[in-house]
């Protein structure tokens, strides 16, 4: 007998694409994540495959993210960004010759890493989706989708058709871009409520994930707690998060990423170097930004100015030690659970993918070491949900409780005094979209069809849970507010245009160019008939 470990990385960024600007700071979210998380993860997994290490990992790649990864303009911008980063690293190598040796060592590492990232990007012709697919074909990686624009479904349930559209589009988008049907779906923010599984059943999705308390407070308590999947009355498998694994990685006090030897996120040459020197590598408007070149380590509870220099070799050693520690803990946990359960426990450990690499710089190496370590331990096997499902003979039927993985387990992150103003508008727009789609479901006029599809895009972009989340957490609020208002007001404008039969094609073209997400959009997904 051996316990199963399901590591899930949820890769998501809101759709940010501003083709009307040659530089737009929020586009850097994607660029930083590609450089620090997505490519390093792909490289780490490829090394494991090359070394024939057996492992299993699940990644949800959300539609906004893969739509951005498929976007020509963004790819070109990313390549330009990365080239300029290589150039900056070259300068840093020259400059640090006269500075502390550790800094110079880091600079050389950055240059080397960025050059490798650039070759990786060029070798796959900028097609990261195919790289993920290749890995999936080895059987080690299981790719799943997410609801269309990461809309927060528990607060959308008043408009069931809007929920349906999010789920159906999440499946369709994945099929369009990955050329395969997604077996599983990550529900944005693990937002689940009873009966949502019906929508998943209609789209032939086999499984999804919930937070632990969805099982704890289920209509019937699951016999094996969170350590075996259950099946809903609509026959969808559900996997629940193991609180122990999350805590081991995440805990503010004892979690791995806070180790003093790891790289400090908040000291960056974008802020530390004289402006004249750095100005070509930051926001052309003159604002300093993070470049990704950082020379300091977490150090401890000291002011930013007192941080000590980062040593990459030392940090990698710590990552390895942490991986060994985590593998041991999993092995111990499996032993304990197996004794109690008398059946293979299934431990589910979901994380935001961007934790690895972007926040926790050494995270991708940690994962690589972890899988190498696990391959040596015989009572734990890392695997993927569909393989677990195939191996099961019986499953308990139960309905999970309404829950999310947000702060305190429910909806307060997405509904509080800072963001509650969005819901009257979102729900009005949803009702109007359903009204339009039902009224025009048989339309054959290409101009109307285009306008209706654009309405659906604007609505879905406004629905992204990211905007409400950002309003709550308090950074870049202005951007989130602006995006919400922009999409809603464009929606209302297009709605009015359809209603009075006065569609301005020039305006429509502009919106289509600005937000070309889901070119295969079909507004009929909102139709009530």
């Amino acid at each position, binding site marked *: 007998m051996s316990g199963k470990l399901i590591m899930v990385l949820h890769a998501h960024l809101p759709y940010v694409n501003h083709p009307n600007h040659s530089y737009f*700071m929020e586009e850097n979210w994607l660029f930083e994540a590609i450089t620090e998380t997505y490519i390093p993860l792909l490289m780490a997994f490829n090394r494991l495959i090359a070394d024939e290490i057996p492992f299993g990992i699940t990644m949800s790649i959300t539609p906004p993210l893969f739509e951005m990864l498929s976007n020509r303009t963004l790819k070109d911008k990313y390549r330009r960004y990365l080239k300029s980063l290589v150039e900056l690293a070259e300068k840093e190598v020259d400059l640090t010759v006269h500075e502390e040796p550790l800094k110079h060592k880091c600079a050389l590492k950055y240059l080397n890493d960025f050059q490798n990232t650039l070759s990786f990007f060029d070798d796959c012709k900028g097609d990261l989706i195919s790289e993920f697919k290749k890995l999936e074909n080895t059987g080690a990686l299981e790719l799943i989708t997410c609801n269309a624009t990461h809309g927060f479904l528990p607060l959308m349930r*008043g408009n069931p058709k809007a929920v349906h559209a999010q789920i159906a589009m999440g499946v369709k988008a994945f099929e369009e871009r990955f050329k395969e049907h997604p077996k599983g779906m990550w529900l944005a923010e693990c937002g689940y409520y009873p009966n949502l599984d019906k929508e998943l059943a209609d789209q032939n999705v086999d499984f999804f994930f919930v937070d632990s308390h969805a099982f704890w407070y289920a209509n*019937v308590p699951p016999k094996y707690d969170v350590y075996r999947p259950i099946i809903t009355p609509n026959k969808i498998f559900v996997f629940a998060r193991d609180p122990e694994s999350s805590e081991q990685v995440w805990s503010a006090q004892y979690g791995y990423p806070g180790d003093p030897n790891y790289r400090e996120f908040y000291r960056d040459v974008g*802020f530390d170097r004289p*402006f004249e020197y750095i100005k070509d590598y930051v926001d052309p408007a003159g604002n300093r930004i993070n470049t990704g070149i950082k020379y300091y380590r977490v150090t401890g509870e000291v002011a930013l100015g007192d941080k000590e220099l980062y040593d990459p070799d030392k940090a990698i050693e710590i990552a390895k030690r942490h991986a060994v520690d985590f593998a041991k803990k999993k092995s111990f946990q499996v032993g304990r659970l197996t004794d109690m359960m008398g059946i293979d426990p299934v431990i589910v450990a979901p994380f935001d993918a961007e934790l690895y690499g972007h926040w926790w710089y050494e995270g991708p190496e940690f994962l690589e070491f972890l899988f190498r370590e696990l391959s040596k331990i015989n009572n734990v096997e890392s695997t993927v949900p569909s393989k677990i499902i195939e191996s099961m003979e019986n499953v308990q039927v139960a309905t999970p409780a309404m829950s999310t*993985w947000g702060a305190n387990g429910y909806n307060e992150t997405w509904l509080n005094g800072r963001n509650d103003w969005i819901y009257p508008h979102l729900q009005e727009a949803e009702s109007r979209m359903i009204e339009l789609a039902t009224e025009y479901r048989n339309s054959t006029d290409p101009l109307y069809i285009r306008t209706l599809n654009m309405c659906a895009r604007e609505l879905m972009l406004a629905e992204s849970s990211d905007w409400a989340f*950002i309003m709550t957490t308090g*950074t*870049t609020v202005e951007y989130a507010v602006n995006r919400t208002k922009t999409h809603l007001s464009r929606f209302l404008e297009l709605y009015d245009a359809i209603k009075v039969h006065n569609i301005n094609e020039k305006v429509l073209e502009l919106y289509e160019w600005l937000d070309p997400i889901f070119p295969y959009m079909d507004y009929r997904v909102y139709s009530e008939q």
Partner: protein
Amino acid sequence: MNGGKTIRQLKKEAMYLKIKGYYNMRKKELVKAISERKTELAKMAHDLGNMKMNQLRSFAKEMGLKLTRRTTKSELIKKISKIFSTWQYEEDVKFGKSGRTNVATSSLTKVSERRAVKTEIDLPKTYKKDKLVGLEVNTNWLHFYWDFSEKTKERLEKHSPIVLRIYDVTYIDFNGTNAHRTFEKELSLNVSKYYVFVPQPNADYLAEIGYKEDNKFVPLLRSNLVSTPPSSPNFAQMELWMDLRTHQKFSEISSKRLAVRIERLTGVSSMPTPSGGNSGGGSFFWISGGRNV
């Protein structure tokens, strides 16, 4: 960002930032002044090394740092950067407890006020439709928002204040009078949303909005059904299972709990002082500091 701050918080912040004349500023002016001051300071923070001793001294004085004649340049820089870093940490989103990190905001922490809003977009203040919508916040809090048609609004204007009623209708086919419990509050006509504390998790609620006439409640709008999520385990005699080869379902008597489950403990080291005092409870809003009135 200054999005959710009260004018008092803003003034306090302005005071710390030594903004001149902050006391007489309005909210908008404060937000702007704070943002400008922070940008100015951020620029300075990264040029500290290049500043002359007398510049540093006068800046330190402005910040209210205590200096002696013997304070060296490096000590001074250290002191000033310390101030900067504490400010910055207040702004940063640190690792959240749950899975959610926010890659999105990370690159912008220091320059979040960078771009002025280019076009101020105004969304309609009302859609002029009768609507009362309930949303779940968590196991004990519900949110309601409403909108009125012209006709309803006129009617309510004649009967102000409006009355919000919450009914516990768990397992009830509600007919207007048979609720388990009924809660009521008068609200001014210009309020269009409200957070409500409800006593029961795993229960169903409905709201009505109306007015009082001769001490009798006249309902005008009824909300959708809102269900608070459960917050404790259910007990069941039987478990339902499915054989995955035959798809046959079968029942089993619930076994004794196998794993000892440890649930997350919520608590604070000292009970916060409630402000206002007209509400039933709900530690969440105290703890998060976002208590809504």
